[in-house]
């Protein structure tokens, strides 16, 4: 069917454009921010991947990078920022605190940013090395190209397309759905 072919090709082209022009919003809260700075700095130079431009307004960003520990107090803030971003949008949880809470298991820290927002890529490490950030970025770009980013899937689902399970939860554990 020519039309569907046309649309799918177009989608591929668009995704290709998207993955190399990621405008990131670094939601920097803690130690990981120091390493995250390093990924911008000359040696690791995230610019090589077309993601060097930080946008400090969520409305202009399409990649939310949660860098550092998220506390219960910060939860609503993070959620609001995510809601303010335009679709399609992607989220990287940078470091174990943003992924699971890390070794802070107490009354104030939230066990992972995905308690309040959906996360596409989790980066382990306390803090992760800049290489891991770049690696995660490449993984995300592949995901974007395939159209398996969380919000991409949701958008498609809203338009009546079927969502591939794997994308519901980036770790492939589709059964649980997006919640923990």
């Amino acid at each position, binding site marked *: 069917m020519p039309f569907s072919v046309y649309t799918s090709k177009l989608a591929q082209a668009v995704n290709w454009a998207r993955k190399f022009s990621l405008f990131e919003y670094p939601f920097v809260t803690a130690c990981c921010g120091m390493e995250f700075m390093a990924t911008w700095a000359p040696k690791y130079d995230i610019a090589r991947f077309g993601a060097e431009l930080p946008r400090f307004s969520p409305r202009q960003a399409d990649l939310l990078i949660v860098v550092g520990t998220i506390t*219960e107090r910060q*939860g609503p803030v993070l959620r609001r920022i995510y809601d303010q971003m335009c679709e399609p949008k992607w989220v990287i949880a940078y470091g174990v605190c943003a992924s699971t809470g890390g070794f802070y298991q107490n*009354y*104030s820290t939230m066990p992972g940013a*995905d*308690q309040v927002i959906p996360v596409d890529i989790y980066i382990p490490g306390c803090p992760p090395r800049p290489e891991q950030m770049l690696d995660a970025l490449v993984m995300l770009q592949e995901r974007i190209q395939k159209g398996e980013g969380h919000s991409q899937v949701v958008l498609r689902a809203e338009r009546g397309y079927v969502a591939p399970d794997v994308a519901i939860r980036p770790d492939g554990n589709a059964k*649980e759905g*997006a919640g923990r």
Partner: protein
Amino acid sequence: MAKIILDRLLEQFVAGEILETGSQHGNEWARVAPANWRAVAQFLRDDPVTALNMFIDLTCVDRLGRKPRFDVVMHLYSVDEKHRVRLLAGLPEDDPSIDSVVVLWPGANWFEREAFDLYGVRFAGHPDLRRILMYPEFVGHPLRKDFPKEGRQPLLRRLPGSVD
């Protein structure tokens, strides 16, 4: 070295006001009756001999099982004499309240708010005694020994299984 501080205290205040003094690991400390908390602090600050004019730290210790349960602990430093002292005051569990020293050192403001936030100690005469580290909706004082380590009180959570 800072023995002189304790001597000054003891000659200035009577036994009922300074309950106990001592020195350990090079730290001089004095246990003060809560009623004299601010008076002692002011004396130490203004007395030319002690001249403890710099506010360093204020916190609280929960000695669960001991009476009185709480200790308010303040550290003072003298910029000129280069000596320091630790003041302690025991507060009962049912009503842990003591005079604020913000009038003496504006820097004490946040430290007292923190002690109030995490231990529930109330400081009489504090300009605005709000929570500082925890959010206003939080219930309880988390650093008390009987507060569970993982007593989370979430402000927000995703709906389980939701695909936003």
